[in-house]
């Protein structure tokens, strides 16, 4: 399931729901991305998505992850709108028979979400705002998954 939402969410509530009644799944990996205060330099983040298009692009990546890692299930929740420091921005959970697949799929989905997913992020500081682009490290991270 892929969900974009404006309201804050509690990652634990999502993880509980995702783990419930899984009798045959051995492994659940999750990742939660939190907004950093950067020692007070960042007052808030503001995230923009393209409704419909953004979910569609994420769904295509999820389909790749299903095939590539033998993923059984996944749950992706992404905030849009204004996000305060300490709040969760993104939650990804993956379920698989064994932990290697669950970890790798979660890692892969996060690398995609952080570098290629259609979001536009504004950092709001005390002295104005700036649009953020992926860090060099994000490009390095996503490149790990490309077959040579």
């Amino acid at each position: 399931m892929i969900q974009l939402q404006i309201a804050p969410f509690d990652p634990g509530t999502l993880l509980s729901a995702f783990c419930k009644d899984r009798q045959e799944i051995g492994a659940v990996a999750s990742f939660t991305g939190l907004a950093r205060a950067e020692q007070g330099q960042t007052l808030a983040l503001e995230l923009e998505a393209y409704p419909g298009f953004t979910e569609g692009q994420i769904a295509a990546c999820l389909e790749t992850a299903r095939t590539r890692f033998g993923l059984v299930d996944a749950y992706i929740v992404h905030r849009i709108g204004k996000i305060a420091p300490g709040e969760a921005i993104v939650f990804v959970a993956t379920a698989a028979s064994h932990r290697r697949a669950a970890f790798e799929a979660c890692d892969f989905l996060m690398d995609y979400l952080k570098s290629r997913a259609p979001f536009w992020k504004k950092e709001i500081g005390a002295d104005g705002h700036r649009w953020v682009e992926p860090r060099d490290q994000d490009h390095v991270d996503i490149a790990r998954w490309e077959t040579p």
Partner: protein
Amino acid sequence: MARVLLFGRLGDIAGWRDQVIEADTLTKLLGRLIEADPGLGEALKAPGVQVALDQVLVRGDRPLTASSEVAYLPPMSGG
């Protein structure tokens, strides 16, 4: 005619994010946007800006209809 959407910094530069504009191809639409706002025109031609027509990424020219949705997407920042 098309519904035009601007995302990220493009919306800030233009001062709008959603507008209906008269044009029957992508090329003519871009011409009209550049003409109306040279600053936005510069930003639209910058490297890394992608175009989605009816929520599908496209390159080159395409015909537009009254129900077309054209989105200009600056480099994505990720979540």
